[in-house]
């Protein structure tokens, strides 16, 4: 049965996926709008390259479409499953990059930032993205998932295929490294002012 699109946006991920598997085109659209931005955001933050991130997002979504008919509701969260696919695709691409040029770090990302973000916010986000690219892959993924995507440590453990303690270690080391990388840019990014206001 076709349902109005508005009512589909209220449905759970599992329910939408079941509708999709039954041929509901509205569910296909709702899932596309719900998950593509998340897949793209994670891929872009990890890879630092917009074009590659789009390829990864499209491939991850394609895998979701393929798995939909066999999806067992309640066994796993769709979002966690998708993040895991994206994480693995990113790791594959980063490995290939290393085989080409071990020192290659992409140019800072050009995220399509929302127009209403303040210039300072944009500069801070850009500085963070640039610093993230200097972290090892696993640390970068853990930090992005924990502190930007806002996932829990157990979810990240599932996505990265490691234990919760390993996730805690990865995020802690990642944050320390980021602190060092961003230390020299505090004044430039207006952080001295922020601290003095507190």
């Amino acid at each position, binding site marked *: 049965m076709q349902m109005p699109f508005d009512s589909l946006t209220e449905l759970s991920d599992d329910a939408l996926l079941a509708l999709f598997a039954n041929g509901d085109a509205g569910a296909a659209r709702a899932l596309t709008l719900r998950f593509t931005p998340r897949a793209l955001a994670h891929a872009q933050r990890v890879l630092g390259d917009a074009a590659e991130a789009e390829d990864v997002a499209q491939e991850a979504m394609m895998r979701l479409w393929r798995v939909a008919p066999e999806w067992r509701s309640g066994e796993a969260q769709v979002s966690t499953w998708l993040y895991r696919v994206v994480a693995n695709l990113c790791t594959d691409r980063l490995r290939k990059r290393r085989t080409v040029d071990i020192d290659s770090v992409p140019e800072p990302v050009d995220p399509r930032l929302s127009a209403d973000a303040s210039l300072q916010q*944009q500069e801070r986000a850009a500085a963070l993205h640039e610093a993230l690219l200097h972290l090892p892959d696993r640390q970068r993924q853990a930090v992005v998932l924990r*502190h930007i995507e806002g996932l829990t440590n157990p979810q990240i453990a599932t996505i990265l295929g490691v234990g919760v303690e390993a996730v805690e270690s990865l995020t802690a080391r990642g944050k320390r490294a980021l602190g060092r990388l961003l230390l020299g840019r505090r004044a430039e990014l207006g952080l001295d002012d922020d601290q003095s206001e507190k």
Partner: protein
Amino acid sequence: MTKAKSDDTDLGLYFQAAQHQPPIANEALLALVLADALAAQAAHCFPAPRAQPAVPLWRQLLAALGGWQGVGGMATAGLVGVWLGFSPPAGLDALALLAPADGLDLGQFAPAYGLDLVALEEG
């Protein structure tokens, strides 16, 4: 404020900035993903019909001859013919002796049409 807390606050501000400015999926990407979705959906829900396997020649011949019954009848008739050729019944020889030595004429079997045949031959 200790240095560690200050660093955490700093990073918190960076993370906050990044959270508020997620990379935005453009329309072209969304259209590609949706097209993939609809194609995959069509493949799941309406799989292409499987190609019918080619019918072997012997089955086509069998059907043309009326199936197993038709072929059985033909085989039986053939065997009877062969059997008659090798071992004709006794009465068949006597019947053969009745035929003239120079062969049979069509008129003998259709006397009523004899004149007509002659007329046709003579124009």
